[in-house]
């Protein structure tokens, strides 16, 4: 007879007995595998595998690149004469950057520019990657229109490490992208590196000798002369350092002069002189802090940013127009003018900056002017750019500092992870403190993103309590 007690006993017994069968374990496994295969895993596109060659357009080194493509789309980039830097390896992801600018008020920008120029406004072009054929064109146009051609500080020389036996570096991030890393390490075993730098940078960590304190440079160079040709570097290759290299007999050997060009620093422009500013930010490049630019603008000046992303000058104007970005754009390598062939077509709606500024496309690039073999143009200005996969380096690991962090010595009194303010001459920015015993007491390590540069300019910021 079926009673309630019997039914409960049967169900409980069945449940207990099931545990001793493979059923629950099979169910767990199968449900795990089933849930793993819910839709959401993208399938890579297939197609004919092609290889294309170009030059990397992300810094003045212009490394040769071999692109592996599926159809026309690059799926990986590799160096030809040496491996690429982290940015170069992921350069084909730039068109898909979450901050990519995809549309902008083109007609309105043209109308406001025409109106301003017709009203006698003095134009200016800010070219963030000087030394290209496009740069020469901008310079010519501005000369014709009595405007200003402006650019970030440009290196006066290329550097040939192969000719040096001793390198004295004054805080130059020699192994961190100042020159193409592969070209540095191709000759690394042939020179001794003395790094003079207050903090333990990556270059200092791998230098043959790290001098945290400032030293008498002439005495140091003289004492090392017996080991062979001495090359002295500082970040911008300043006139004093060039003179010292000339004294040391390195002119034309370890330092190779680049063609002279008229000055284009923004500091030479009188305040309030620019009535219409056109910014060519069509590729990852250096960034001049906005507070350095803003005083040069006349009241009501029209600012048009021809930009590939929203994180740069597009934050400072409503007239931000989208441009192609590497590897979509046809361009040339700064100073050597070697052509950079586009690997993919740019999306619809982007604006060619040269065509917009000059009124017509660039056409053929200027003839290449090769440097002395082994010489590389340094990247003297910061490039605050990363690709989406860089999250592997600063989010998913601790390898790089996050843009919203600042590093201090533990004696600073801050706690790790403490919220604080990065205080610069032009404002404050919320950051999180990271303690690093490799940082000199009193110094600050920070990531020079456009947002950070906008609050501190080219001077080192301070960290203050929030």
């Amino acid at each position: 007879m079926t009673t309630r007690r019997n039914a409960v006993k049967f169900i409980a017994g069945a449940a207990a007995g099931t545990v001793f069968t493979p059923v629950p374990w099979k169910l767990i496994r199968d449900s795990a595998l089933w849930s793993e295969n819910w839709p959401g895993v993208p399938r890579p596109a297939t197609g004919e595998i092609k290889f294309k060659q170009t030059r990397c357009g992300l810094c003045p080194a212009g490394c040769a690149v071999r692109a592996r493509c599926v159809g026309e789309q690059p799926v990986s980039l590799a160096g030809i004469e040496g491996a690429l830097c982290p940015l170069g390896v992921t350069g084909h992801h730039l068109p898909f950057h979450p901050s990519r600018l995809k549309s902008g008020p083109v007609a309105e920008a043209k109308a406001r520019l025409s109106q301003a120029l017709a009203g006698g406004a003095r134009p200016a072009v800010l070219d963030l990657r000087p030394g290209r054929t496009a740069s020469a064109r901008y310079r010519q146009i501005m000369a014709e229109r009595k405007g200003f051609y402006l650019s970030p500080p440009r290196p006066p020389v290329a550097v040939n490490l192969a000719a040096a036996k001793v390198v004295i570096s004054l805080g130059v991030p020699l192994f961190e992208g100042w020159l193409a890393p592969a070209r540095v390490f191709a000759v690394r075993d042939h020179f001794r590196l003395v790094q003079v730098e207050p903090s333990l940078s990556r270059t200092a960590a791998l230098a043959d000798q790290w001098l945290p304190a400032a030293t008498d440079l002439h005495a140091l160079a003289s004492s090392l002369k017996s080991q062979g040709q001495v090359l002295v570097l500082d970040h911008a290759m300043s006139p004093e350092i060039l003179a010292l290299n000339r004294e040391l007999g390195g002119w034309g050997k370890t330092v190779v002069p680049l063609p002279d060009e008229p000055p284009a620093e923004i500091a030479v422009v009188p305040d309030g002189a620019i009535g219409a500013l056109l910014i060519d930010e069509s590729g990852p490049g250096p960034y001049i802090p906005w507070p350095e630019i803003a005083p040069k603008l006349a009241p009501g000046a029209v600012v048009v940013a021809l930009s590939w992303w929203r994180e740069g000058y597009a934050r400072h104007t409503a007239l931000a127009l989208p441009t192609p970005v590497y590897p979509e754009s046809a361009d040339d390598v700064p100073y050597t003018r070697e052509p950079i062939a586009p690997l993919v077509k740019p999306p619809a709606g982007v604006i060619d900056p040269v065509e917009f500024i000059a009124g017509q496309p660039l056409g053929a690039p200027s003839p290449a002017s090769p440097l002395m073999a082994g010489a590389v143009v340094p990247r003297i200005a910061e490039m605050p750019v990363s690709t989406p996969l860089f999250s592997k380096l600063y989010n998913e690991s601790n390898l790089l500092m996050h843009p919203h962090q600042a590093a201090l010595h533990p004696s600073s009194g801050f706690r790790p992870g403490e919220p604080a303010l990065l205080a610069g001459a032009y404002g404050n920015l919320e950051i999180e403190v990271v303690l690093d015993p490799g940082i000199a007491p009193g110094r600050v390590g920070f990531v020079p993103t456009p947002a950070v540069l906008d609050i501190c300019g080219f001077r080192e910021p301070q960290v203050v309590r929030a």
Partner: protein
Amino acid sequence: MKRYGMTIDIDRCTGCGACMLACAVENNIPPVNGANDRKGLTWIRVYQVDNGEDFPNRRSAFIPVLCQHCGHETPCVHVCPQQAVDVDPATGIVGQMPERCLGCRYCMAACPYHARYFNWWDPKWPVGMERTLNPDVAPRMRGVVEKCNFCHGRRHAAEQAGLAEYTPACAEACPTGAIHFTDLNAHPPAQADTFRLLDRLGTDPKIYYHSSREWVRRQGEPASAARPTVADQRVPNPSRDRKGAVPAPVAKADSSRDRTKPIAGRNADSLNPKEASRG
């Protein structure tokens, strides 16, 4: 018979991360939004280690850590209930089959090198970036463990093309030439100044590191050198021997340094990275 492995010259590693990015590009590893360094996916990960001194006596170095492709008593193989991990006897490569993986993460607990990573989320790339995926490697689904397989897509492509050798993406991308991939049977690594991570565990890792700096070579073994090894702990029990769990040495983490915590905290063992400081 091959025995693929790597020699990594720590004295040339600048910690630029090109190997990590090239690995992600080659193996279709997505950028994980919202992940931290304990939940990220990095089949090869570069740790910053230091000599423990304060400024200005501090010195640091970078150690790329990937699956060590253990050749003896491979811990992850022993613990996997799904037989989703195997050692290829022809190459010595420890493979991972995500289709079989249950996501139990026993292998992650067993791995003394923290070289295995769990897919916490569906793989997602920024809009349109799926077009840049490598057609030779299938993206993995959520809920499975993944790790370095010495770029099996490249190995298969090389085999199909009849090539005897190939180069994994990290070795190809290293701008300083610090990473060398080779058949260790044909090209045994030099003995001088060479070390392996946690060598005393007896797992026969196939990644050899080189540094002329003595304090860097010490990073290969944790500070608790007196702890027993696998061999010391063996008891006369064949089944236990076969499935013997590898004892985890204790890390001597310096908790005063914030960026250390995630590394040392993942599991109490490892490389004793006293600190992974600023980049």
